[in-house]
């Protein structure tokens, strides 16, 4: 059963990557479109009044976090890993 499932997931993984990407973009685009019609009952932040702002927030924060931590912070903090038999 584990092997069958593994093979199935592997086929999905190696399938049409382009279709997966297209599916993701369509889903995300649809979510923003829906946001134009669905608003919070009470805006917790003033930005809640602008459709798609949580999308921008997620994208900007994730990209900025990875860039800052990997490109600026990690080179300063990086040390060799501790070996098991040290």
């Amino acid at each position, binding site marked *: 059963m584990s092997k069958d*499932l593994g093979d199935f997931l592997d086929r999905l*993984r190696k399938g049409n990557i382009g279709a997966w990407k297209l599916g993701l973009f369509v889903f*995300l685009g649809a*979510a923003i479109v829906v946001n134009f019609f669905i608003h919070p009952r009470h805006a917790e932040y003033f930005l809640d009044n602008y459709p798609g702002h949580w999308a921008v*927030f997620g994208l900007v924060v*994730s990209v900025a976090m990875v860039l800052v*931590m990997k490109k600026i912070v990690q080179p300063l903090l990086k040390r060799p890993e501790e070996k098991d*038999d040290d």
Partner: protein
Amino acid sequence: MTINGPFFHPAWAFLALALALPFFRGTWWRCLLLVPPLIAIWAVVHMQEGSYGVLPYLGQEMVLGRVDRLSKLFANVFAIQALIGMIYALHLRDRAQHAAASVYVAGSFGCVFAGDYLTLFIFWEMMSVSSTFLVWLNRKPVSIRAGLRYFLFHTLGGLLILAGLLLRYRAVGSLAFIAISPENARFFDWLILTGFCVNAAAVPLHAWLPDTYPEATVTGAVFMCAFTTKTAVYALARGFAGFEVLTVAGTVMAVYGVLYAAIENDARRILSYHIVSQVGYMLAGIGIGTAMTINGATVHAYAHILYKGLLFMGAGCLLFAAGTARLDQLGGLLRRMPWVMIFYMVGALSISGVPFFNGFVTKNMTIHGTVAAHREWIGFMLEVAAVGTFVSVGLKLPYFAFWAKPDSKIELKPIPANMYVAMAIAAGLCLAMGVYPQMVYRILPHPVFYAPFEVYKVLQAVLLLGFTGLGFFFMHTVIKPLPARNLDFDILYRFVGNAFVAGFTRPLAAVDDIWTQVYRRVGLAALMGSARSAGVFDRQAIDTAVDGTASTVHATSRFFLRIQTGRLQDYLAWMTVAAMLVFTLVWWLADWG
């Protein structure tokens, strides 16, 4: 209120198991591992609110069983997680690991039901010692060192609590473990608070956690990720709700943890930093201290125990099967470990707050509570942490473990069925709680006025996490894990340790060395001189006295030997002499008197 109703302290069942384990032989005893957790679940379900096990001690009352909504909530999830953890460890034949885990879980139950600081402290230390063994029993040099650092740091935390409770007792005359209002907190309360914050892994006291958990045993880490920090969360919620410092510390933790997780390589270290982050949400909620944020913090602790245990079980499977949890050495395992991936992903989607997984119904309650308490910036930073959580735990870790590379050819050890069963139970509970949050909402400390599934809230989560996924898609080559260890505050306590060695141990050793030389040169010579004097004294004084006594006894004996002639007339003569002496003495005494 003391009630003599039915109450069974779950800790006793675990302690009994730990005490009995050394005497078992063979392998049959492993079925007994499930008995204490099942007893604990039964006990927690059936216990009524009240105070039980009240013992007089030093003029105070030690309360072993304070049962109320808060303690029952934590005991409830502790019992469930203990069962899951024991099932996950069922294949292990190492009785020492099971004993350490049992004592550890017993300590957690002891803390949760403690009604006074002394009881709390005893069980707190029990947890500290037994969890150290869960690290040491990994039996690798790196684990031994990490365990020692862990133990020293927790000893420091324990001492802060001990100092606080003793000073508090002297000042207020009570050891009762009750809520302290921020306005009335005195310096000893701050000591106790700091001690709790050590176990809660509050930044900058957190470094022991990501330093140690990745070095614990595969099964030990599953217990440790659930109990230590959450027992501290319970203690803070019980004693220090409304302390602003916790709000600040919690928010810093939430963001700090995700930032470090973004650059870590070891799967269990990534998850460890996310404990810091997730406990940050809880501390922020406790610090704000409204009914909704306390509910949010405690229900998030409940959910966190389930999904974090599941995540550590998934990462533990990687380590168990592949022999490493370092992401740069993993990848392409999807086809060979599909069930591990599926169960892991349930935990990952839960911690990320994806709708219909349990993190969604708990994390958002905390964030909503902070905003409702007009702390918008706190809520905003917690959303930043939510993005970082999905990046590292939801995307980076599974991507680099299961995808990322072509099919992995590394040798994999088969994973025992019990590990899958434990993960399946945890995954089922994460989903059940996510779909039907009322199962936990109804046992929270305060009435719940929060609707998690409003359409906008679901849409907000979809947008936030969906576009975080897009960000990861753009950044997946940048975030590739590197085989490196990143400096953290542990460098501070390693520095303090080394400074202690340099500042105290080495100078003391040098002084000791000099003292040894002085002793050899001066002390030893003086000792030899005094020994010679004693010899002379012994020969001249002691021996003379002893010899003199001996010769006197000898002479007296010879005299008495001589007068015993055996002739009657000699004895009569001596009797006459003696009688005359007696008569003279009596006459003289009578005359003198």
